[in-house]
């Protein structure tokens, strides 16, 4: 009876792959957004707050309007608004962007929980996935390959940004603002405006990442929804050395690492599960140690970035 369903160790592999795809999407979206922001020379640590705010807004909008896509849009807009707030305050002289990020983290989360209380119980419509696994008879495979379009949007974005940063004018402008603000000003660009736009875009993408969490996977809104994904994405950007395509691979890696724990327990390995769950963080720290050096800044780090000094 259990023939077709019992995949044993293949089941674990499948769970990790499927989990990697699912869990990585918010990391991907947030890290792409933060890459843009940091390339322009600002660091936005408030993305956790932006993510949660996006999740709440997306869920609430979907519930109230009946359209999950409208919810995703609203999530992005909410994220963009917080990004604008971050940029506006950081544009004032003598303001430290890291501190503003921490303040927005707090503010964003507080606001999201406050406004989101009435939405914890109800169930709104969820984002549909693309049934890419319909070729298989096995329900496990079918489910594993039921992938959200947001994953592909994220992938397309990563490719586009990777190409765009190197080959288009706006990519150059962005990078100049991040590498040498004086040079940018010298040719008449408004560095503040570039950074503002980059931070707004970053906020929009983070909001989308949050919307993914509440509208697709795990598809719920409550106060425990995010377990630090927004903060992790910031580490991820450094891990990926500010390259959009590397952000994509790193997101998959982190997603897989998060999925290992539960997957492995289903085949009976139960010891030390907390240590499994620490895997992504240890991995990032290890890579940071390996790739940093005191004599030069992290390769690829925008020179204007406050945390790369």
């Amino acid at each position, binding site marked *: 009876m259990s023939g077709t369903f019992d995949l044993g160790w293949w089941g674990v592999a499948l769970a990790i792959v499927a989990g990697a795809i699912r869990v990585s999407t918010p990391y991907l979206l947030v890290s792409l957004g933060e890459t843009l922001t940091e390339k322009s020379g600002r660091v936005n640590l408030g993305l956790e707050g932006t993510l949660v705010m996006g999740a709440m807004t997306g869920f609430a909008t979907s519930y109230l309007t009946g359209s999950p896509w409208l919810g995703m849009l609203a999530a992005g807009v909410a994220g963009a608004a917080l990004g604008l707030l971050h940029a506006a305050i950081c544009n*004032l002289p003598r*303001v430290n962007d890291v501190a503003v990020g*921490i*303040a927005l983290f707090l*503010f964003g989360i507080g606001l999201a929980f*406050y406004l989101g209380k009435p939405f914890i119980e109800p169930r709104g419509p969820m984002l549909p996935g693309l049934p890419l696994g319909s070729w298989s008879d096995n329900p496990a495979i079918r489910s594993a390959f039921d992938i959200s379009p947001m994953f592909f949007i994220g992938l397309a974005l990563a490719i586009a940004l990777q190409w765009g940063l190197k080959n288009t004018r706006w990519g150059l402008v962005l990078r100049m603002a991040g590498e040498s*603000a004086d040079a940018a000003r010298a040719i008449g660009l408004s560095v503040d405006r570039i*950074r503002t736009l980059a931070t707004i875009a970053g906020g929009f993408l983070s909001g989308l990442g949050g919307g993914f969490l509440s509208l697709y996977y795990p598809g719920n809104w409550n106060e425990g929804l995010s377990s*630090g994904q927004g903060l992790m994405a910031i580490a991820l950007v450094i891990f990926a050395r500010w390259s959009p395509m590397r952000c994509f691979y790193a997101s998959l890696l982190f997603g897989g690492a998060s999925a290992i724990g539960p997957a492995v327990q289903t085949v009976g390995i139960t010891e030390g599960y*907390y240590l499994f769950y620490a895997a992504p963080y240890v991995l990032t720290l290890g890579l940071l140690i390996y790739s940093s050096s005191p004599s030069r800044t992290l390769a690829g780090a925008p020179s204007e970035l406050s945390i790369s000094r």
Partner: protein
Amino acid sequence: MREPLAAPTAASAPHSSSGVTYGWLLGARHLPTDGLESLLLSLAAIVVAALLFGGFLALQGHDPVAVYQTLYLGAFGTHFSLENTLTQAAPLLLTALCTLIPARVGLLVIGGEGAVVLGGLGAVIAGAALGGAPGPIGTVLTLAAGALAGGLWIASAGALKHLRGVNETISTLLLNYIAIALLNHLVSGPIRDFSQTLKAQSWSIPDAFMIGNIPGWSVHWGLVIGLVVCSLLHLLLRHTTLGFSMDILGGNRRAAQMAGLPIGRLILLACFLGGAAAGLAGAIEIVAVHGAASESLVVGLGYTGILVAFLARQNALAVILVALLLGGISASGGLLQRRFDIPHAATTVLQGLIFLCVLASSAFAGRMLPRRSAA
């Protein structure tokens, strides 16, 4: 003003906002007018935040005046409320130092949460190992072990920064998560007290090591420890050569190098002291409240400490006032919930607003009072 000494980097240009050096973090310093100005700015920022929050509440249909009256009642209005505020403020005095002390040497450390956890773990392991020791000695050693554990944890981030250039904000953030995973792992198995079926917690420290309340108040002695440590640190940072060396390093690294200061040692020391303070807070949670380590150590003490440090503009004495303010807001949150049905998150919104306003206010520094000639 607090501009860094002759920094040749682009970021010190007047309108740059990437904030590369942390000189601004040092806050009120040598000139009395600067100290006064800083204080006035912070107060103005808090008032603005309070007005904004009041507007937010009014939009929700609550009466802001009534809410603020209740907030005062719950924070300072009765003897009981005051005790409540002090209880909330006590650990913040110490965890704020975890961000404050490294900030003096120009590092932005957000690892207070992890240091608190390590402090708790260190305390229970030492406490259990010291089984038969006499009470007061056991208490002191247990606290010291917690402080040591926290200090080493953050110092490792400092070492990574100095030796490998690893950014300390990110590394301490990661260390927080690793510390929490370590705590969960240890209290679920290796150091677990299996006779406690109530929850997963570590073995308990001997009763003789526990500390009690200040006579006449329902607040434990951890408050006094926090006050003493803050005061001592303030003396250290402002009135000793060591503190002055740290200031120089924080102001401008190259100048410090030229002056021949031992940069690596200063960084390690600053991180160690900061981590030790937060670790002490964790150990006090064990010794004054719980008696054993469990997930109850992870309640955001470290993260709130970051907030306190920034609001106090990295001044150890101001930390005391700010901790009282934030403690008061937290303490009255419950009353707001019960009387007005305002969700618990409202206090977080208020704290976030205050933080944002205080940060924005630094844009006005140097413009409010007539300036004396350059420092």
